[in-house]
């Protein structure tokens, strides 16, 4: 019980946390398998990361350092409010620096910096079932997973190629975990899929509304599905980040004015700021509005 707030440590009561930890342990034991759990009401609406928040609440300890990102940014309302929530209910230290964090809760991105074995990445998941698109019946999708019957996943990719000439799925790109279960990695860009493969950090996925938890243990094979003649590829960007000149990272397009002015900048704001602090300078660094360049912008 936290004296300051009257809440249990990290909001959830101990019994609930134990129940969620059991689900997490099971998820780690069966990589990629969706473990049902009794999702609790959280003081935020579904669709705001209630699954991720419950997972984080169940694993976080007083010595942890928490980072929360939303689409790569630490500064969005959603990220800020989840960070504050844990600062208040668990009294934990928070950070925006990927390197310093021990627990990183994320919506829609994996940080650019390589994660280490001392870290846990918690994903907020809206729809955990990768087969849902083609098979709405839950009883049937469960059976398909049980039998590793994943032809349907390829039907979806086939449809993509037939329609667009290439696999057009760019988010929530399905991947096979440890050679067995196929999972939906949540709506991260497929650019991030390779980062899940053999990642040293533990990866936990929490879906609040759908009451599912799944996991990728450290150093586990994660293979994005594809065809022999249409192999999986990630997005590539024509120009480097306009602020920090980074290449080979995921960039967001930012519209600068209503005359078609725009630029491409790192989606991972911490990564970008750190590079600028190290002296890397992109071609638009001096011109970018402060709101985009952030504190570390044009110091």
């Amino acid at each position, binding site marked *: 019980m936290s004296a300051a707030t009257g809440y249990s440590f990290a909001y959830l009561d101990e019994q609930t946390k134990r129940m969620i930890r059991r689900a997490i342990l099971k998820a780690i034991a069966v990589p990629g398998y969706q473990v049902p759990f009794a999702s609790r009401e959280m003081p935020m609406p579904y669709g705001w990361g209630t699954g991720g928040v419950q997972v984080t609440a169940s694993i976080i300890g007083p010595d942890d350092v928490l980072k929360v990102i939303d689409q790569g940014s630490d500064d969005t309302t959603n990220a800020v409010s989840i960070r504050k929530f844990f600062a208040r209910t668990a009294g934990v230290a928070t950070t925006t620096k990927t390197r310093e964090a021990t627990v990183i809760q994320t919506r829609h991105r994996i940080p650019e910096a390589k994660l280490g074995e001392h870290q846990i990445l918690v994903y907020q998941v809206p729809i955990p079932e990768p087969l849902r698109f*083609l098979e709405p019946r839950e009883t049937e999708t469960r*059976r398909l997973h*049980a*039998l590793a*019957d994943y*032809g*349907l996943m*390829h*039907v979806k990719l*086939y*449809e993509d*190629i*037939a*329609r667009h000439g290439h696999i057009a799925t760019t988010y929530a790109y399905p991947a096979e975990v440890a050679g067995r279960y196929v999972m939906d990695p949540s709506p991260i860009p497929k650019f991030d899929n390779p980062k899940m493969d053999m990642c040293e950090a533990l990866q936990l996925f929490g879906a609040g509304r759908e009451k599912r938890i799944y996991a990728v243990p450290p150093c586990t094979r994660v293979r994005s599905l*594809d*065809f*022999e*003649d*249409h192999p999986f590829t990630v997005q590539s960007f024509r120009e480097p980040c306009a602020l920090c000149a980074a290449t080979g990272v995921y960039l967001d397009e930012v519209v600068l004015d209503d005359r078609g002015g725009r630029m491409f900048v790192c989606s991972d704001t911490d990564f970008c700021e750190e590079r600028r602090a190290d002296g890397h300078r992109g071609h638009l660094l001096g011109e970018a509005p402060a709101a985009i360049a952030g504190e570390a912008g044009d110091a």
Partner: protein
Amino acid sequence: MRETNRVRAMPDAPLLSAESLTKFYGPRLGCADVSFDLHEGEVLAVVGESGSGKSTLLSLLSTELAPSRGAVRYRMRDGSVRDLNALTEAERRFLLRTDWGFVRQDAREGLRMGVSAGANVGERLMAVGDRHYGRIRATALDWLGRVEIEAARIDDTPQSFSGGMRQRLQIARNLVTRPRLVFMDEPTSGLDVSVQARLLDLIRGLVAELGLAVVIVTHDLAVARLLSHRIMVMRQGRVIETGLTDQVLDDPREAYTQLLVSSVLAA
């Protein structure tokens, strides 16, 4: 010597054997004591009035329903004879989409209406592990051609297909893995007469060309006459007459079959 004899005897062994198949839905009888052998390349028509147990029998044969009594034995591709109700779920599914086909009366049950014709045909290939898009598509195109669907429709969903086209697509989707046995439940009913005739021709051609064994349920004796070698007449859940199709239809023994045949001729 013995060994050779056994191997030689193999082609004569039935592909499928039904033994006293019986199904009760609670107290109501679905079908009772149905026994028969089906050999490779043989077409068996099951005819009878509405409620006589035809669909029930088909569901028992295809393992969609478990029998209350009796068994179905099937000779697998490796030659071993298996009791179908003892198969694991994985084996059963594998059988269903490799060695078997099931053409439904309602194409919406047999197709994925939300995905393209090409994907409908390609699904079984992907399910058994084909991971080469170009090859899957080429095979799908080939099969669309064989069931007389224009190549240009390959990326359309069956939603935009006519009833006859849907049935033909269902057939392509089922035959793409070269099954040895196909179940059909009233595949031509609900289509108008000219479309029916064309579909029957197509089925007849493919069955002969591929040497398929077929169990086809119909209450249309003309369909039975055109497609089947043997016929089984059912009434109130029981088989009341069985034999070579022409013999049964030309010279029915049972009064009920006589009535059935004459009423068709009269109609």
